[in-house]
C-alpha cells in the first residue's frame, strides 16, 4: 500500500471514530474497566510475590555442620552445597556470628536468658541456604543432607510449601483472569467495529466496486481499533497511578508499606502490556469483525 493511501486511510479511521464517538467512548470505557481489572490482578500478584519473596529469602534451610571440624573444612562444605543444583545462595555463618545473631533476636533479655553459655558457644558452624525452585525442596534438602560434613538440616518445610502453593495459586488465577479479560477486550472491540462497519456498508460496497483491495478496506477499521485500544491503555495507566498512590497512602497510616512494590517499578512494563493488549485487541478485533463481511461482494454485501 502506498504511503499516501496509508495517510488517507488513517485519517478516515480517525474520522470514523469521531462519527461514531458515542460508541467509541463506550468501548474505551469498557476496555478501561477490563484493563483496570487486569492491572489490579497484576499489581496484586506483584505485591504478593514480593511479600512471598521476603518469606522465601528468610533462610528457609539452615544447615548445621558436624562438631570437631575446622572452619576451613566447613567453608569447603559450604562451597560444595553452593554448587548443588537448585541452590540459589549458600552463606557460611561461623558459630560466633550465629550466636551473636541469636542473642540479637532476644534483645535486652538475652544476657539474663543465656547466662549458661557464658564463655562457650554451643552453636555449630552453619550455612544459610536459599533455593531457586521450591517445587524441588525435598530433593534439594536430601542432597544437602548427603554432603560430607553436614550434621543436620533445619528446614521450614511447611512455610516453604505454603509459600509455593500460594504463589502457584496466584499465578494460575492471574493467568485465567488475564486470559478472560483479553477475550472480553477482543469481543468489545470487534463489536464496536461491527457497528461502525454497518454504518459504512454503502461506502464499503462502493470501495469494492471501484477495485479496493480488502486490505484497503480493513485499514481504517484497524486504525480505529488500535486507537481505541491505545487510548484505553493510556487512561487506565493514569487511573492506576492515582488509585495505587491513594491505596498506599491509606495503608501507610495503619501499617508498614515499605514492602509494597513502587509504582515506578512496574509502570513501563504494565503500560507495555496494556498497549500491546490494546493494539492487538484493536487489530485482531477489527479483523475478526470484518473477516466474514469482506467475503461478501457488492450488492450482496449491502444486503447483508
Amino acid at each position: 500500500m502506498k504511503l499516501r493511501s496509508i495517510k488517507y486511510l488513517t485519517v478516515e479511521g480517525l474520522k470514523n471514530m469521531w462519527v461514531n464517538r458515542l460508541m467509541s467512548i463506550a468501548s474505551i470505557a469498557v476496555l478501561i474497566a477490563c484493563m483496570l481489572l487486569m492491572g489490579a490482578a497484576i499489581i496484586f500478584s506483584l505485591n504478593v510475590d514480593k511479600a512471598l519473596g521476603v518469606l522465601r529469602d528468610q533462610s528457609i534451610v539452615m544447615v548445621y555442620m558436624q562438631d570437631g571440624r575446622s572452619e576451613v573444612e566447613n567453608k569447603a562444605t559450604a562451597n560444595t552445597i553452593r554448587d548443588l543444583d537448585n541452590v540459589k545462595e549458600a552463606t557460611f555463618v561461623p558459630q560466633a556470628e550465629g550466636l551473636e545473631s541469636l542473642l540479637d533476636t532476644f534483645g535486652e533479655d538475652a544476657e539474663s536468658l543465656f547466662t549458661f553459655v557464658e564463655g562457650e558457644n554451643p552453636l555449630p558452624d552453619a550455612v544459610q541456604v536459599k533455593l531457586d525452585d521450591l517445587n524441588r525442596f525435598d530433593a534439594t534438602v536430601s542432597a544437602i543432607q548427603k554432603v560430607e560434613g553436614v550434621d543436620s538440616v533445619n528446614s521450614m518445610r511447611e512455610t516453604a510449601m505454603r509459600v509455593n502453593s500460594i504463589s502457584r495459586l496466584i499465578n494460575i488465577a492471574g493467568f485465567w483472569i488475564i486470559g478472560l479479560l483479553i477475550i472480553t477486550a477482543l469481543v468489545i472491540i470487534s463489536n464496536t467495529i461491527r457497528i461502525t462497519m454497518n454504518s459504512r456498508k454503502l461506502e464499503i460496497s462502493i470501495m469494492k466496486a471501484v477495485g479496493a483491495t480488502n486490505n484497503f478496506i480493513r485499514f481504517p477499521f484497524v486504525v480505529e481499533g488500535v486507537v481505541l485500544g491505545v487510548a484505553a491503555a493510556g487512561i487506565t495507566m493514569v487511573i492506576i497511578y492515582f488509585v495505587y498512590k491513594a491505596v498506599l497512602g491509606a495503608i501507610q497510616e495503619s501499617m508498614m508499606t515499605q514492602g509494597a512494590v513502587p509504582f515506578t517499578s512496574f509502570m513501563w512494563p504494565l503500560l507495555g502490556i496494556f498497549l500491546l493488549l490494546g493494539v492487538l485487541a484493536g487489530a485482531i478485533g477489527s479483523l475478526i469483525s470484518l473477516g466474514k463481511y469482506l467475503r461478501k461482494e457488492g450488492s450482496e454485501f449491502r444486503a447483508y
Partner: protein
Amino acid sequence: MQTAAGAPIIEFKGVSKTYTTGTHALKDINIKIYKGDFVFVVGASGAGKSTFIKLMIHEEAPNTGEIIVNGFRMSEIRRSQVPLLRRTMGIVFQDFRLIPTMNVFDNVAFTLRVVGASSREIRKKVTAALSVVGLGNKSRMFPAELSGGEQQRVGLARAIVNNPSMIIADEPTGNVDPNMSYEIVELLTEINRRGTTVVMVTHEHQLVRDFNRRVIMLENGTIVADNADGGLES
C-alpha cells in the same frame, strides 16, 4: 451500430448460472463484446440482466462455462486479482451509490484514492471528469443538494475518472426523469465515442429504440435476440 474487430473485450462461452435457491438465472449464454462497442442489455424483471452484470464484475461465479473480461479469465482469477479486474471498468448503479457525507468532488475522487493516486492527479482527473458530465461548478455540493439526474452524472463521473476501458451501467436511468435519461445515455454515447466500451442494462425500450446500438435481449435467462450482426428489428 459499430462493432470493432479484434479480440473481444468481454466474452461469455456457454455460461450458465443457477443460484443456491434453485433459480436458473442464465442458461448457456454465448456473447462477444468488442472494444469500442456500445451494447444495450434488455429484458424484463427476472430475465437475468443483473446476473449478467454480476458475472462480468465477478460478484458471482458461473456454474458452467467461461467468462473472459479485459483479459481476466474468471475461472482462473484469484481473489487478490478481483480488485485489479474492477479497476479496468467503471460501474454505474441504478441507485447512484454516492456517499452522502462526501461532497461531489470527494465522491468522484474516491475511485482514485483506492488506487493511491496523488492529490495533484486526483484534482486534475476529477476536474476533467466533472466537466465531461457538466458538473464542474457543483463539485463542493453534497449529493442531497443535487437532483436525481445530477446524482447519476456524479456516478458517471466516478465511473470514468480512472479512465476504464469499459463502463458497465446497471439501469442508470432507472431513477431519473425521462429527459434526464436521454442526457445520461447521450453522455454514455459521448464516452463511448472516445473509445470506452459501454454495456448498459435497461428495460426502457424507447431509449433503446432511439439510440441505434447493439441490443442483447434476455428472457428467462437465455438470449432471445442479439443484433450484433445487424438483425433484431423490434
